[in-house]
């Protein structure tokens, strides 16, 4: 994996390589080089399988982190390509022409995070949620509890405990 990184580092201006396991590493890349890097990995380096494509919401930094996880069957290696995009008006280039499965991931990200992928097929169609009208639910500023209380009828008499205090009370009733 180190050799692969050294080969690609300068051409695509990759960030640091983080190796989580001998067979799993992550690199960061700029938006301009993403597509070229993915094509290179897929067609030349043998990373032919898109394992997953997902996002992380860095609300405090105002950014989304996209992760493209690729797998090389022959060498049994996984490489994650990471990329930051601004949260506001989030939009990314579609890669459904490289991996048709990306279409599904992109529909999911569109619905759950509100990231646009112009040109991706059926991206504006409902994916898991039906008729969702609020903030995309996987954005961290979406308050699921508040939404649930406002939307769904509740049965009176339900008690909720803070698990930490509750267990403390139960296990050590007279303090310590």
């Amino acid at each position, binding site marked *: 994996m180190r050799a692969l990184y050294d080969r690609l580092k300068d051409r695509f201006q990759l960030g640091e390589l983080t190796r989580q396991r001998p067979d799993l590493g992550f690199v960061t890349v700029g938006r301009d080089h993403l597509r070229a890097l993915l094509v290179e990995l897929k067609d030349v380096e043998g990373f032919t399988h898109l394992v997953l494509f997902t996002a992380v919401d860095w*609300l*405090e930094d*105002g950014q989304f982190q996209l992760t493209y996880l690729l797998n090389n069957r022959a060498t049994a290696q996984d490489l994650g390509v990471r990329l930051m995009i601004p*949260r*506001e*008006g989030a939009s990314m280039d579609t890669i459904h022409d490289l991996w048709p499965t990306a279409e599904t991931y992109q529909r999911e990200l*569109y619905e759950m995070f*509100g990231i*646009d992928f112009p040109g991706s097929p059926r991206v*504006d*169609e*409902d994916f*898991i*949620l*039906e*008729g*969702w*009208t*609020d*903030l*995309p*639910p996987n*954005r*961290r*500023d*979406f308050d*699921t*509890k508040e*939404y*649930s*209380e406002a*939307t*769904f*009828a*509740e*049965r009176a*008499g*339900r008690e*909720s405990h803070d698990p930490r205090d509750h267990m403390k009370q139960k296990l050590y009733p007279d303090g310590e």
Partner: protein
Amino acid sequence: MKDEKYTPLPRRPIGLDREELKKRTVTAPDGQTFEVDPIRDYYCQDAPKAHQRSYIKIVEDFFNWCRAESLWILGYGTGCGAIEMRPLMTPRFDAYRYGIQWRPTPRQANLLMISGYLSVKTLKRAIRSYEQMQNPKYVVGLGSCTINGGMYWDSYNTIKKLDEYLPVDLYIAGCMPRPEALLAGFEDLKKIIKAGGGEGANKYAENFEWYKANQKSVIKDWDMPDYNW
């Protein structure tokens, strides 16, 4: 921390605004043209009617005894509790000895088991299935998710109180209830029916407007007729 700057991305029309549910003119292979209004043409629009009781009590009691002794469950599982139904069908717990069996379609069933949490999407299917069942029909809610939301109490996509949306005859508590609890629940349901308490379908018909209003308040993508008979 709230980001106020989000502008919703465009979505395709949902519910009755869908392209395929709109009224349209169709040209048949033989050149004739005719209008198709999918929602109106393919479904009966009538609201359900309450079923009359028998004229004397002893006959009604006899009917209720018969109903209680043949509970046919729609083989439809939502949530984790559906797993507990499988051992019930098989020799270990063998629910068949109580006159209970599972059927593959709503038309052949009279007991709908809601076996756990219902997402809004599944609720729509559950309502359709319930409405397609023949009267008299019963609903049993399984597990704490159907009672008060269970551990999905703060989820953005699951309902928390089943009896707002469907007439529930009986709840079985637990997370998840064991097959023994289900068997006890079936026996309780039989008692309720024999005592003349299994009036869910009539309740549904009488309070149809209320149920529909509740259902539509959570199901935003309403793409079916009001009553799916």
